[in-house]
């Protein structure tokens, strides 16, 4: 291994991004590495994009900034693939690891024609099957061990068991270890296509949106309700689907939707606002005739 490995995790709040960054570091610590793991997020909520960082080193780490030039970029949620800063600073021989069931060419296209090393794992599927929740973090740890050779599956399993057992019951520990094992075995590797010396991708450098002197005085927001321009639809794991024949237009879904994502006109239910629906499932739960059901988002996307 090189002197230091730097990892940047991209995911959404609630998917276990911070836990994954820490679990990896703790496992590495047991294996004798110096470690760091810390998250980086704004005032946002379950489902919002967040980042976390892990550093593993053979010598004490004096660097304390966010990871700018990662060896590995791990993406827990494929809806983040369009984020232009995703690959910022990724080393030319680094790896992009994505939680996705999509074919590699498709993922490469979604990240702006990325040509570097790519690894894919359908971690959400594994998590839903093994953990019964969309917690793709532990399967990805298995994939990471396989790719980097940092740990054998046995060592990683032992370290993770050690840390999870302190907090969780045997059932949860065992399910997570199964998720790690499947991640290790099911990861799909697609080596880089870049010719020697070619950069895998050109990453545009981000600038500040507005210089401070152009901000409205007092930080006022003068355009009431402009949050409508912000899409929260990609936070979904499940999406509502309606059987219109059963709908009685009682509008309980409209009343109880926290995201104003039920379209109604003239007292009639019309459908869902997919740009903002976060997939909480309240509409399905409160629907008296059970006209709304929740369907896994990836299946709907795959069917289109």
């Amino acid at each position, binding site marked *: 291994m090189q002197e230091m490995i730097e990892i940047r995790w991209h995911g959404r709040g609630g998917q276990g991004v911070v836990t994954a960054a820490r679990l990896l570091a703790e496992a590495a610590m047991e294996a004798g590495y110096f470690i760091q793991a810390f998250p980086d997020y704004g005032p946002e909520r379950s489902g919002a994009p967040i980042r976390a960082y892990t550093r593993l080193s053979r010598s004490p780490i004096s660097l304390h900034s966010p990871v700018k030039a990662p060896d590995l970029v791990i993406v827990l949620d494929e809806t983040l693939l369009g984020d232009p800063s995703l690959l910022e600073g990724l080393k030319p021989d680094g790896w992009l690891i994505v939680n996705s069931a999509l074919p590699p060419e498709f993922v490469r296209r979604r990240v702006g024609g990325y040509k570097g090393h790519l690894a894919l794992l359908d971690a959400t599927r594994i998590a839903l099957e093994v953990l019964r929740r969309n917690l793709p973090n532990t399967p990805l740890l298995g994939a990471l061990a396989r790719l980097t050779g940092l740990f054998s599956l046995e060592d990683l399993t032992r370290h993770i068991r050690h840390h999870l057992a302190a907090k969780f019951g045997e059932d949860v520990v065992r399910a997570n270890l199964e998720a790690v094992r499947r991640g290790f075995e099911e990861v799909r590797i697609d080596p880089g296509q870049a010719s020697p010396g070619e950069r895998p991708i050109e990453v545009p450098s981000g600038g500040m*949106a507005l210089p401070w002197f152009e901000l409205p005085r007092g930080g006022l927001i003068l355009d*009431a309700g*402009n*949050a409508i321009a*912000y899409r*929260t639809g990609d936070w979904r794991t499940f999406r509502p689907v309606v059987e219109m024949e059963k709908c009685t237009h009682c509008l309980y879904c*409209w009343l*109880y939707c*926290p995201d104003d994502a039920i379209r109604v006109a003239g007292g009639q239910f019309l459908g869902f606002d997919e740009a903002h629906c976060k997939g909480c499932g309240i509409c399905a739960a409160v629907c008296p005739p059970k006209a709304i059901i929740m369907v896994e988002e990836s299946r709907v996307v795959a069917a289109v």
Partner: protein
Amino acid sequence: MAATPLNLKVLSEKRTPLSGGHRLCAGCAEAIIVKQVLLAIDDPVVVINGTGCLEVSTTIFPYTAWRVPWIHVAFENTAAVAAGVEAAYRALIRRRAIPEDRRVVFVAFAGDGGTYDIGLQALSGALERGHKFLYVCLDNEGYMNTGIQRSSATPRGAWTTTTPVGAVMPGKPQWRKDLTGIIAAHRIPYVAQAAPSHWKDLMSKVRKAVAADGPAFLNVLADCNRGWRHDPALTLEVTRMAVETCYWPLFEVENGVWRLSYRPRRKLPITEYLKLQGRFAHLFQPEYQNLVAEIQAEVDRRWEELLRRCGEHV
């Protein structure tokens, strides 16, 4: 002008006060409550919002989800700022800068941290001075915005990150504070407790509150699926169970008269409420049986006390 009837077909024609694109958690009850509260009011509204999840997640620069005038204030002074805004409005009327018949309703939103704990002094002061505004406490029973720490609204036996479950303590050791009772003791014109699962009751209470001649206070149970540890889809079911078990009774105190708003046909055991939430999961282990019995006894005691205050048979 007659008030908009509390009918969903008619209400759905109104402009919703909070747009999509805010960044509250999926399934958050706060957005549902804000919608019900503000849709009940037909007059122009100014919202005063104390620090907390609602403020942080609805106004991430350069976006705001609010379609009404809105001001953010610190945890401890939501009621003080609401009082100031209301006083400024009255001053402008006296100065004839705005017409006397221009009705404006002032609604303050803050969480239990900002109300039961940090903002209680400012709230008590504003209520005593008699400012005409509605204060809505979004009671999610903890400091959820900072990562699920206990507040004085957290119920006994609940897990939070600062009342972990283990050999030392069984979740939060103390009983929750009876804030609605404390506010009622201020003898303001209108005090009520409500839940979004009972939307008509909640919206009717908002109307009484804004029609009252003076301060009004509404304590609303605001389910937090992250902190209470349950599937976000269950938000309304958990809330309904809080009411059906008489853990969160619906009542109002109008000019000193206590009135029960809803009496469950059959009062369900508290376990029906507790079992839906991960924060109480430990209570179902044998060693905590006594604590469950204590919680049930306390719910019963508070419920019977309320029945007596409301002149209901016990």
